[in-house]
Every structure is written in C-alpha cells, then in structure tokens.
C-alpha cells in the first residue's frame, strides 16, 4: 500500500471525521419523458444448490427491451435492497439507458434464501452469509444453473460474459466478486459497495490470491467509507473480522498490482448505502463504459517501468495475451505428461491403449502400438522414453528418434503400484510405490532399494503423488495429494533420500469435496529452480524458498461446491 494513502486512510479513521453528506442526484430521480421499465417479482423455487430454500426475485425489463436480441444484464444480490429507496436501480437504469450511457439492460434482483420453518415455534435458517460470504463456486453455480435459466425462459439473455454484470453490497459484494472470480468465463463486470473483504469466511484471503493469480478478465468498481465499522471510541474497528476500509484498500491494491481494470472510491460514510446509492449512476457508467468493447486482461503498466522487479511475478512467466490453447480433441484422461528435446509431448492414452505423441504443431499420433496400457511416461537421457505399465509392472525404455517407439528394453520388472517416477541424468530412477508406502530407488545398474518410507515421517506426508528433480539433481521434490505441504529431499551419494522437509506450502482449493484435500498432482521445475505443481487452483509456482508466488489459471473451472 502506498504509505501516503495509508496514512491518509488511518488518519481519517483515527479522528473519525464526520460523515460527508451524500444525496441521490437527478440520475436517481424519475424524469418526465423518460421511458420506464417494468419490474416483475417472482419466487424461484428451491433447487439443487440450496435445498428447500426459495429465493425472492424480481426482473427489471427496460422499455427498450428487444426480444429479438440477446440482452445484457446485471444481477443484484440483496435484490430487494437494490430495488428500494437507497439505490433505486430501476430509476437509475431508466435514466442511464434512455441517454445510452449504459446498454439497455435487464436487471435481475435476488434476495438471499431463507429456509422456511416447519412450525411456528421454529426459527428460519437464514442463508445470506452462507450464500454470499463463500469462496466456493456454489453461489455461481446457483446463478448459472438455476436463477439465470429461470429468467432466460422469458427473456433473451446474452450469453457473453462481457454482457453480464454482478452487484453486491457488504457481504453481497463478496458474493458478487466471488461469482466472477470463480466463473470469469461467465461474468466480467462487478460492482462492490462497502465490500466485506474481512476475516469472516475467507474473503480476507482474496488479496493474497489476487496478487498471485494470473489476472482474469474482470472489471470491478469498489466503494467504501473510512467510518465503515469505525467509531470514535474504537478507531481500530468494531468487528472481530478486521477493518473494512483497510481491507477494501488492500483488495483494491491487489487488483491494481495484477493489472485489473479497477476503481476504488473511498468516502467517509459508515456501513451503509448513503455514498453507494449517491454514486450508483457514476459507478454504472464506469462499469459499462466502452460497451460493447470486451473486458480483457492486460499487464499492469508498471511492467514497463525501470523500477519493475520481475522476481516472482506471474508476468515474468506468462504472456497475458497468450492463454491456454487446447490441443487435440477429447481424450479419456491424461494423468502423466513428458516431453523430449525436440518439442514432442507424450502421454498414455488408455482408450486407444497406447502412448500418444503430440508434435510441436499440435498433431497427435500413436507413438506405441496397442495394446500398451502404460500409466506413467518420463523422458530420460539419450532420447529414451521410459514408460510404466501397471499390468506388467515393468518400466520399459524406448527410443523417440523414430516416429513410433523402437529399440525397446526393459529397465526393471515387477514394480507393483508405481504412481510416478523420475529419471536422473545417470539413468537412475526414483519411484513412488503406493503399495508399500515407500519411495524406491533403482540405480543405473538396475538394482532397486527403498530410498524412503514415508511412515517414518510421523504422518506428516500423507499421499505422495508426483516426483520431480531439481535442475542440479541434488534434490527430489515429492508432491502430496492430501496435505497442504509438498516435500523437498536431499539425494545422498548412495541414492537414498535424506533431510526431508515439508518445504512447499500450497494454496488450498475452497471446496466441500473432502476427497480433494490439497489435490496436488504432478510437479516439475524450471531451470531457475522454481517448482510447478498441478493443483485444483491451477499451476501453483513455488519459489525455490518454498513460497507460492504465482498461480496460473486453469482453463476450466474449479471444483464445484
């Protein structure tokens, strides 16, 4: 945070300035001659994501609505409040749409669910915090699979993410932001008033994730006040969860750091909609400016400044304008990948019953002849592809200098339960043996021994899943599919693994799917010693010192729930 701004913020909070007056302007007042949209209320019945829980909803349809055209829309969380006197969204929409300052949009208003009581002596279960203050994709799933389809039955809603906005107030702002964060393929515009980015149910973690994660195509307008949860006798804040104004500032700067199109308006109000309601027309104009130009990701301008430090920045790894491209079609499953020095990539194809090869142009061919039910592939020295086949329990090496495998030779037999292996320059092999809970070592003469029993680590290592060697091949990294931590071991002269440390601390997926745990799979290293882990959040890149510094987005969405 810039020291000067932080100082201003803290001084403002410390002396608890009297709130500035905010009033609704002419854009929030009905204007004669302006076409008026209509608001239709309905109840969305209980569905899959919030069982037994109906949602009160409404739809604003602009007077200019053309059913023949896909129509952009915004979803307002706490919909009843957005329709009410503090925000007057339908009036603002009428005025701005009539002047073509925002597109002729539909507004969808949804209140948080309330589970009805069984008898009058019972209390309801109120879902607001559960639905909105959540890092999981459940609320996004609810919007995409239940609310939006219900409205789309009657109105021609656009499917373009650039045509879809979300708006939330307080905890609702977290819900709006998280829906876009979890589904940037669906939502590109977020309006956040007095956002609750504090330590309640995980939203305080967002700035750290935003700074690490490859930017997503989201434009966000933020507003908060220096007296939000601040009173004269408690200038440090009134809530167990932290400081609203400081955390909004921290969130804003994280988004700036990562190059987002973001604006923060910091006023003097408390946790209310006085300022938000007053600036709603300006916020909507800013959020929808340049429409229909798409919202795209870009590097922060600082990348091109002389004082830019490239160390541990996602922009030092990726080209933001070169996202993932899909290669080939739909394969059954790919659990192991490796590559030769000529740019060919290999993976076991269990449906075709062979190992496939993808050349640098993206062309996929069968490298081995069926039936070959290999499960793991690793590239070794001398253009040799090592494969492990569970049915034979053998590791076999073959030449990749030909279009199909040639010169096959068996390296070792009867290795049951191998989950991954790594090959050294000397031709030695480390392998995860799931059946005996060990990491095995096969020296270059073909002699096998146990390098590590992970039961000896007092339960700290749970489920090894992937192996990779450091560039100098002095260390072996072992990823753990359950634990938050993956391991670094030093390789002793006799090949055994020593001095293990739970060195790499992963960011965890927010999911109720317990089998996922950390979900860490394979690992690899770059020539600088950065370690790359395949995880449910994307590729997490650890600095040599064990910190996750970068996260490359998955192409497809994170686990549900």
């Amino acid at each position, binding site marked *: 945070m810039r020291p000067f701004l932080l100082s201003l913020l803290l001084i403002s909070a410390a002396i608890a300035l009297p709130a500035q007056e905010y009033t609704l302007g002419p854009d929030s007042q009905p204007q004669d001659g302006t076409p008026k949209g209509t608001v239709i209320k309905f109840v969305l019945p209980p569905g899959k994501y919030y069982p037994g829980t109906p949602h009160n909803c409404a739809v604003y349809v602009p007077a200019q609505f053309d059913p023949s055209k896909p129509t952009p829309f915004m979803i307002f969380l706490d919909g009843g409040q957005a329709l009410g006197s503090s925000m007057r969204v339908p009036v603002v929409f009428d005025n701005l749409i009539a002047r073509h300052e925002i597109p002729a949009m539909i507004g969808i208003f949804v209140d948080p669910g309330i589970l009805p009581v069984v008898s009058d002596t019972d209390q309801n279960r109120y879902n607001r915090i559960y639905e909105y203050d959540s890092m999981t994709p459940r609320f996004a799933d609810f919007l995409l699979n239940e609310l939006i389809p219900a409205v789309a039955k009657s109105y021609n809603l656009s499917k373009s993410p650039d045509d879809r906005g979300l708006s939330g107030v307080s905890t609702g702002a977290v819900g709006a932001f998280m829906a876009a964060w979890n589904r940037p393929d669906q939502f590109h515009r977020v309006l956040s008033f007095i956002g609750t980015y504090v330590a309640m149910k995980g939203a305080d973690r967002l700035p750290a994730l935003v700074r690490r994660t490859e930017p997503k195509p989201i434009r966000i307008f933020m507003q908060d006040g220096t007296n939000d949860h601040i009173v004269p006798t408690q200038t440090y804040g009134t809530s167990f969860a932290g400081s609203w104004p400081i955390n909004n500032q921290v969130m804003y700067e994280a988004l700036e750091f990562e190059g987002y199109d973001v604006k923060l308006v910091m006023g003097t109000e408390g946790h209310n909609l006085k300022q938000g309601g007053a600036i709603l027309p300006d916020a909507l104009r800013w959020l929808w400016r340049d429409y229909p130009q798409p919202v795209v990701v870009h590097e922060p301008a600082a990348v091109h400044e002389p004082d830019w430090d490239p160390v541990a920045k996602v922009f030092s790894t990726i*080209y933001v304008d070169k996202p993932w491209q899909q290669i080939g079609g739909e394969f059954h499953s790919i659990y192991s990948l490796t*590559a030769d020095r000529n740019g060919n990539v290999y993976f076991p194809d269990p449906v075709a019953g062979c190992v496939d090869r993808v050349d640098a142009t993206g062309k996929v061919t069968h490298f081995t002849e069926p039936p070959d039910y290999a499960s793991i592939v690793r590239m070794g020295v001398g253009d040799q592809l090592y494969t492990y086949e569970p049915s034979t329990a053998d590791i076999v090496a073959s030449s990749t200098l030909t279009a199909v495998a040639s010169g096959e030779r068996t390296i070792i037999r009867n290795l049951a339960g191998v989950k991954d292996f790594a090959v050294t320059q000397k031709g030695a092999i480390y392998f995860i043996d799931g059946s005996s809970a060990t990491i095995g070592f096969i020296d270059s003469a073909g002699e096998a021994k146990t390098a590590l029993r992970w039961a000896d680590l007092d339960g700290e290592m749970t489920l090894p899943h992937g192996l990779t*060697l450091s*560039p100098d091949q002095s260390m072996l990294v072992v990823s753990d599919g359950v634990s938050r931590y993956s391991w670094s071991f030093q390789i002793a002269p006799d090949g055994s693994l020593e001095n293990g440390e739970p060195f790499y601390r992963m960011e965890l997926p927010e999911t109720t799917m317990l089998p996922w745990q950390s979900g860490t799979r394979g690992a690899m*290293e*770059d020539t*600088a010693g950065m370690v*790359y882990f395949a995880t449910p959040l994307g590729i997490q890149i650890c600095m040599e010192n064990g910190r996750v510094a970068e996260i490359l987005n998955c192409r*497809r969405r994170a686990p549900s729930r």
Partner: protein
Amino acid sequence: MPAPGAEPLSAITFSGAGDADWIYAAQGGKLYRRPVKVTGANAWTVMKPPKPTL
C-alpha cells in the same frame, strides 16, 4: 462427486524444441498448452540453479 467438467489439473510438463519454453497441462481428458517466458529443467541437462531469494 465433483460436478461435470470440474476436474483438477492432472498432469503438467515443459516442452519445446531447444528451450523448453511451453507448458502443457492436462485437465482430465483435455490437453492445453501455452508459451511461457521460462525454461523447463530436464533429466539430461544438470545445471546449478541460482541462489534463491531469501
């Protein structure tokens, strides 16, 4: 069970002729790739990495 289409990254590798400056990532049955500004380590080249930032 995870919802349809909600798979984790299942495998990764560096690749590229000469410098391994592409990342390939598998997500269930789909394979993706992108060019990157870094270079992958491999089994056949042993090199001492720089001292890390502490």
